[in-house]
């Protein structure tokens, strides 16, 4: 039986312990500041990056690994596995998928043992896809079966976040200054979600942020009967323990999940939405 390795990008925001326990290979994104270039999740985390930016840090660019880095990563993984399935962040927000494909192309025949799948999600939305792939691999599924299921699953994953303000969206050029100012003035909190791999505005909440988060969670879980109850991720950027507890309590009040897992967003994801952002990410039933 072929040994199948599952690998992914660090921006799936799954805990490090999960990677170690399940032998999931991880490729790190990079954050480049004015002083150096650091691996996301290994050398720099979201708290570091937010603090750096809040304290006047001028430059903080995020980037995916280059094709050559993917190539050496895949080559290393192929020493342990017969075939690899690499699940990447959505192609619409990062070059990661394309770089991985280019690396596979460069590998020639060896590249045929590497299969790159676009999750069409990010953060723990992508994490759901990775976990599913790992479960299927552990259950003895073949590469083809895993890839097909991944294609089906990604349509059912719900990835959304509510941001405290539009500051970081403005920083990354996703909204204009006027929109940011209007959001600030009128206490508007944008809700972003992934649709067909693209990040779009799903809606807004207005008013006190804590209450807005609760309303967002209620809105997301209003069709709880259609949600897969096995697992829900609450992924956040720099939220306090108290805020997380409140969010978790709200989730549990609305819907009983077998597992509610709290994770921190990676620096790459955090740089797009800012401190205080929180999301509930789950899978819809078939």
């Amino acid at each position, binding site marked *: 039986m072929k040994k199948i390795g599952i690998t992914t990008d660090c921006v799936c925001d799954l805990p490090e312990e999960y990677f170690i326990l399940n032998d999931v290979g991880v490729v790190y994104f990079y954050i480049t500041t*004015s*002083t*150096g270039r650091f691996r996301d999740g290994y050398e720099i*985390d979201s708290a570091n990056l937010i603090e750096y930016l809040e304290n006047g840090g001028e430059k903080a660019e995020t980037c995916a690994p280059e094709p050559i880095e993917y190539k050496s990563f895949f080559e290393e993984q192929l020493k342990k596995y017969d075939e690899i399935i690499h699940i990447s962040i959505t192609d619409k927000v990062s070059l990661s998928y394309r770089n991985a494909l280019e690396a596979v192309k460069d590998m020639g025949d060896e590249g045929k043992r590497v299969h790159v799948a676009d999750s069409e999600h990010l953060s723990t939305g992508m994490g759901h896809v990775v976990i599913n792939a790992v479960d299927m691999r552990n259950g003895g599924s073949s590469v083809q079966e895993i890839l097909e299921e991944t294609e089906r699953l990604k349509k059912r994953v719900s990835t959304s976040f509510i941001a405290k303000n539009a500051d970081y969206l403005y920083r990354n050029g996703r909204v204009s200054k006027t929109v940011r100012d209007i959001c600030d003035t009128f206490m508007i909190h944008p809700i972003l979600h992934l649709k067909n791999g693209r990040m779009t505005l799903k809606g807004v909440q207005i008013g006190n942020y804590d209450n807005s988060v609760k309303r967002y969670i209620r809105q997301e879980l209003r069709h709880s009967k259609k949600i897969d109850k096995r697992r829900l991720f609450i992924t956040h950027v720099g939220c306090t323990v108290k805020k997380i507890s409140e969010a978790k309590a709200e989730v549990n009040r609305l819907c009983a999940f077998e597992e509610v897992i709290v994770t921190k967003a990676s620096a790459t994801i955090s740089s797009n939405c800012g401190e205080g952002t929180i999301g509930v990410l789950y899978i819809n039933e078939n």
Partner: protein
Amino acid sequence: MKYTDVVTNKKTAAKAGLLIFMLCTVIMGAMCIFSGWETWLIIMLAVHAVVLTVMTFHPKIPVKAQSAVLMLFSFSNIFSCSIMENDIYQSIAVFIGAAILISVYKDVKLLLTYALLIVCGAFYHIFVLGSVSFDTMTDITHFIVRISVMLTALVFLLVFISSMNKNEEELKESVAEARQAEHYKSDFLANMSHEIRTPMNAIVGMCELILRESGLSESVRENCFNIQTSGRSLLAIINDILDFSKIESGKLELIPDEFNIASTLNTVINMSEARRRNKKIEIIVKADPDIPRGIIGDEVRIRQVIVNLMTNAIKYTEKGYVTLTVSQSKQDYGINLLVSVADTGIGITEENIEKLFTSFRQVDTKKNRSVEGTGLGLAISKRLITQMGGFVGVKSEYGVGSEFRFVIPVKVTDERPFITIKEPQSIHAVGYFGNNDRYNKHFCEIGRQLNVDFRCCESDEELKTMSDGGNITHFFAGKEEYINNAELFGQLAEKSEVFVIQERLDAIELPENIKCIFKPFYAISVASALNNENMVVSLNERRGSDIRFSAPKARVLIVDDNAINLKVAVGLMQPYHMQLITAESGPAAINMLRSRDIDLVFMDHMMPEMDGIEATKIIRDMEGDYYKKLPIVALTANAVNGVREMFIQEGLNDFLAKPIELSALDRILRNYLPKKYIEAPTASDYAENDRRKKGRKPVSESVMFDPDKGLMYTGGSIDAYREILEMYAKKGPEKRVYIDKLFEKKDWKNYVIEVHALKSTSLSIGAVKLSELAKELELAGKSGSYGTIEKKNGMLSDLYGEVIDIVNDYLGESEPDDTENETAEETAELTEISAEKLSEYIGRAKDACAGFDGDAMTAIADEVSDYSYNGKPLKEYFGRAAELAEDFEYDTALEEIARLEAETEVSV
């Protein structure tokens, strides 16, 4: 709140103001149309709206201009509308709405101006338009009520705004006061730290001297070592406090320089081992051998951070492991240096992780009551790493353990790995640590990193099988494993290298052919073993004083205007066997540097005529690279916050605080002497023992004179101390008279210089009370408190006289035993003096001759017998003058002095 936030808030307020203005304009426009008001009014409203919109969104127009124009337009719109409206009461809602609009700007004057406008409008309606009727009581009542409503609203707004402004002012004042308090606190901390550090240095230094003695019992040595360790710990805390206050005030400067991570790790491990003491925890070190051997960074601060993290890990771990991992990731600019410290300690809860890097806080203080510490370490570490352009992270699980990690970007100067193995292919090593999985993995990992064949065995049988294989070159075993197989290892040692890895505290003696590696063993210690470098260090040697090195070829120039200070410095440096040259002034030092090669200069800061900084500038300007690169270290008694940075800015390389602390001196010599001159200590260095004079009587009753203290400052050498005392007693009367003269002349500048010198020379001999009084008067002189000097100079003079008497008594009572004393090395050179000093002697000689005082002339000749000026020995002139004076030939003696003046071009 940042400046950008303030600007953003003002702009947001401006936009809010525009929104409300537009709303009002629309309402007024509607009123214009439906009430059939003049057309020009509508045009005016439209123009105002357009102009204000442009001003609000134009990036170059300041908010202040926008708000002024908004006010102007609001007033004109409202006034125009109010006079259009026949009934003044219709306008009340508009007036109040406008008042609320104005209150957005929180300007009381603006609101009052608006109130005036309303009054003008009211007068217009009452007296011009006659729209207000006072015919009936009802009319009057309506008028009063409505005006009252308006006035009440205005008064309310005025009070509200005033209160808000007052709160803002109070807040600003509180912030300014807090900042000022912060500033005072930092200054206070710096001063107090300095005051505490001086006696602490004395404690540590005295322990150093004691540890140098041979013949101490083990328990005394152990106790002394513990006192020294505790003293250093306290010094470390004080340094932390100082560092923190520097960081908070933004004054901490990093000093990047090339360094080798190996020396950092060595120091960190030694310090961590010392801190570990009897705890049942093991320190494991994992270092990537491929880290470049030359990297650029502030090694002192990097080491400080690692030590902080290790100290915390050890503090909060009772059993298990503390693992230090150092690795790298290659980048275009060099590498990212990654350091992590993981422990199996108590861990940290999520809530406490949020507070972790906050200053002055230890988490879970109730539970950690027994854990000492100021709570500053992590805060300082984080700020240092941030300043280096790096990041700090922490992961923890409560009850399981924690991992602190930091990364810093560094440039590389030498790409070669910092650990290399000679002929790795020829090495086949076996590790035997029983079934200690962690050790086995660690050992094999080291082998993999070093690219060497390392294997582990887990049983005696496996060991025997591997050793029978025949090609094993090195065996590494744990202590228990060795003890259980001592005979076998003894046999293996005949053909292979055998190393036993054991703890320092309970190390066992090993046969000569079996070597010891003290834990923690890691890539460096294993590599040294494989490269056949001797890693064994005797326990007793470690507990004894740090062995000084020898540098007989090094030439060191010490410049100080004070002869006693010179003697002290020479005494302290004698154990290094360097060639010591002295100079008593800046000009003398400069002359010396012109004519001979010097490897290192110690330059006193405060000297008359030309201070150390001026002298350094002249030296640096001299032609030739040699003078630019010559290491010059400042000697100063004022070791306050920021002084090192000041010296470096002035062209010096470093500074050494007086009284000189031995370990600081050692560090300076190691850093600045050419490495080729540094030799290992000789056997006589190890055996060196300062013999105590029989019959020496410390003056225990007198608090004014403590010979033990003085002896400490002269490096423990009795002979050097006697010389210094003799010089002190000899020069004392003259100095005392001179200080009094300066006091009478109110020559405060030179008075301060003299009492400054008196402060350090008195402390050097152990005359603490006099030193403290001299210090008080020095500070008074510097701060302009001449009243204090006038009040206390008499006291100083009397005390000085008493100390001189005590010293004379002491010298008289404690004659050296010539058969037992070793004489200290003396400098063969005459001491160069400055022109000013020579002028002083010339003046005194002339006075003596003019006053027919042969004895005074003889005394002067004695004083100058060790001095020279521009290479000319002065005893030649003064001695001849003294002989002539003794023969009552005072005129000829004066001619001799005149000849000296002519030849040296120095006169009174």
